[in-house]
């Protein structure tokens, strides 16, 4: 756990974060699986015991991948492969992939085979000439880090192995963009955010060449070097990818988020004010400020009219003390949205990831909206309970996990906007943009009402003042 309220200089000298108490995040293997399942017409081969393959199945669900379009194989390693090494088994499973009509097979390694020294890169190199598909080995054992580390590992693997290193400047496709790590968001239906961004970019006259990754074709990947811009859709990872794209293929960040461009860094467009700033910055960069202003005016008008017509009673937010427990992709812009748009007071922020680039962004955002919440990164569920116990907020913005914590801590309002959320959704609902702002408000409003749907919880919320104080009836 990393307390951002402490001076920057001491943040890293105090050593690694505390041990994983009930981690929110899954391992690097899962992050890599999330990434490669976003490639169409390919096969994901998990070189792992069969339990790890469950993470690949979960990744299929996260990417909303069609099982008929993207295939899955597992080497189902057992004790024999751990003792003797599993390279022969891997080779056999690669042969099995001939049964599929795919252009590429992504070979992911789990912890076991990496620990016993299976050299998947060598196996893939040896078999490359004999199989009718490209083999892409990605060494992403779970112990290499969190799912965000896995996303970074896999993105590097894809870019290094599927995109040619030009050596000399390539012909650029004017106004083309690469979108980085849209799938890293904890919005349970994050493809909605991706669609919103694609739509906005199209209105600005930009063409999305490829998303890294979601429904991405191999041919799109191979053409990545010709893109003009990149655009990060996460604050949790992808920084290395942004740098790699710039260094190797001269793909310029559209809205820089790297530490080198601190003054230009912006939170993602979640919330009324953030969306306006994000659109206006795009307009400045692309020299289309009038268009951006028009989008802002139209969007704000739409959101305000909608709120007025529906009579959304969101006054309960006014002045409320709020704790945000989320990934950085949502937590960072939520700081501004809560403080600026809803006029409440963020008192605590627990961010699941801990990318070094995050710290300056969070601090800048707090300074901008003049708030000083307790901010911690790399939190697990245990740390979250500690944060909530100390902060005693009126409202939690988080996930289903915090709902259970809140019941123990006597915090009445838990608004569930980030994964995991026990809600069935048939359509992707974006959080980005003005429509996304209304989506968030709708979720928050419904969860607020849910508080009163149980007699016990109704009484608790009614008689207690939200900080667990007062007399319970």
């Amino acid at each position, binding site marked *: 756990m990393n307390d951002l309220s402490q001076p920057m200089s001491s943040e890293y000298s105090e050593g690694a974060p505390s041990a994983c108490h009930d981690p929110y995040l899954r391992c690097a293997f899962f992050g890599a699986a999330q990434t490669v399942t976003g490639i169409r017409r390919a096969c994901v081969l998990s070189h792992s015991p069969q339990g790890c393959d469950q993470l690949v199945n979960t990744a299929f669900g996260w990417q909303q991948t069609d099982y008929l379009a993207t295939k899955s194989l597992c080497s189902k390693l057992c*004790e*024999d492969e*751990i*003792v*003797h*090494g599993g*390279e022969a088994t891997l080779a056999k499973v690669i042969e099995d992939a001939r049964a599929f009509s795919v252009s590429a097979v992504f070979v992911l390694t789990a912890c076991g085979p990496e*620990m*016993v*020294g*299976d*050299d998947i890169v060598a196996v893939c190199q040896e078999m490359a000439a004999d199989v009718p598909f490209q083999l892409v080995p990605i060494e992403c054992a779970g112990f290499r880090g969190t799912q965000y580390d896995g996303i970074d590992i896999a993105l590097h693997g894809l870019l290094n192995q599927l995109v040619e290193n030009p050596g000399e400047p390539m012909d650029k496709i004017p106004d083309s963009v690469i979108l980085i790590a849209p799938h890293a968001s904890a919005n349970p239906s994050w493809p909605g955010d991706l669609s919103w961004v694609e739509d906005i970019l199209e209105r600005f006259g930009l063409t999305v060449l490829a998303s890294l990754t979601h429904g991405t074709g191999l041919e799109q990947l191979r053409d990545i070097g010709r893109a003009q811009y990149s655009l990060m859709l996460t604050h949790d990872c992808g920084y290395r990818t942004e740098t790699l794209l710039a260094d190797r293929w001269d793909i310029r960040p559209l809205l820089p988020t790297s530490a080198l461009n601190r003054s230009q860094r912006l939170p993602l467009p979640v919330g009324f004010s953030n969306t306006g700033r994000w659109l206006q910055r795009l307009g400045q960069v692309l020299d289309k400020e009038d268009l951006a202003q028009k989008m802002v005016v139209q969007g704000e008008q739409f959101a305000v009219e909608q709120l007025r017509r529906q009579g959304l009673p969101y006054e309960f937010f006014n002045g409320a003390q709020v704790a945000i427990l989320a990934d950085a992709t949502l937590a960072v812009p939520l700081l501004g949205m809560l403080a600026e748009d809803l006029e409440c007071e963020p008192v605590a922020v627990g961010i699941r990831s801990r990318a070094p680039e995050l710290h300056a962004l969070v601090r800048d955002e707090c300074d901008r909206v003049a708030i000083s919440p307790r901010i911690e990164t790399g939190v697990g569920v245990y740390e979250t309970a500690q944060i909530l116990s100390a902060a005693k907020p009126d409202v939690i913005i988080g996930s289903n996990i915090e709902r259970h914590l809140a019941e123990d801590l006597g915090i009445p309002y838990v608004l569930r906007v980030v994964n995991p959320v026990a809600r069935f959704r048939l359509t992707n609902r974006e959080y980005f943009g003005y429509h996304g702002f209304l989506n968030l408000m709708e979720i928050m409003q419904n969860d607020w009402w849910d508080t009163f749907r149980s007699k016990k919880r109704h009484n608790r919320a009614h008689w207690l003042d939200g900080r667990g104080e007062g007399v319970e009836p």
Partner: protein
Amino acid sequence: MLNPDMRQIAIYGKGGIGKSTIAANLSVALAQGSKEIMQVGCDPKRDSTRNLTGGRLIPTVLDTLRDCLRRGRDQHSIELEQIVFPGSAGVHCVEAGGPEPGIGCAGRGVLTAIQILRDLDAYRTYELDLVIYDVLGDVVCGGFAQPIREGFAREIFLVCSGEFMSLYAANNIARAIERLSRRGQARLSGLICNSRGHPTLEKLVLEAVAKRMGTQLVGFIPRSQSIGRCEVEGITVMEGAPESEAAGAFRTLSERVLATEGGVIPAPLELEELEHIYRHCAREEGS
């Protein structure tokens, strides 16, 4: 019927120090004393029992298991006769086997092999009095400590010479035993010296180190050309030169091993202390 008093001892020590030689001769010496002995080689090289089988390398447990798996069967289809072979003086010989160099996990393999022996009820079937595990090299990772961790190797003897690096390795193994004693029943039963030809210094150093660790020097095997000659023939010195000084030392060792039950949680030394003891003994020997 399983002998309730069956003992399981493990021989650890620096690579090349003579563990297999000592294990094989100890096995024969104990067997000649009317004990039912099994020696389990826990090294992928599978040469621990070579001197018990006339120089022949016997099939390993893990190779046999792999054959079964390839035929769609599991370990329960293995017959004990496929993996346990009669050796000199009736010692039951087993080689765990393991992966090829550079891949796989040898430590896990050793544990798998021992578990197969247990699952197939080998200890009960042969009514063993004592099992000797001849474990490879140093404890270099958690995998090689598996026989200790899982409670198979309960009484551990460390083989060393008077050479400093062998003491260093023995001390590291003592550290592992101390760590693993929290969970299992593994204890250090003593040091065995396989002499390199400096008996005075070796005895001084090893007795001092053993005392500091909280244990004792249980055996001293003198340097002997007869041991080397017998190894070339693929036999133990107990058979090839039964009247030799070395054979006598192995008989004495077997008696002490039988008399040494239990053991201690060792107190490993810091490197500086080990160096200090060594220098002190070297000066004492010189004077």
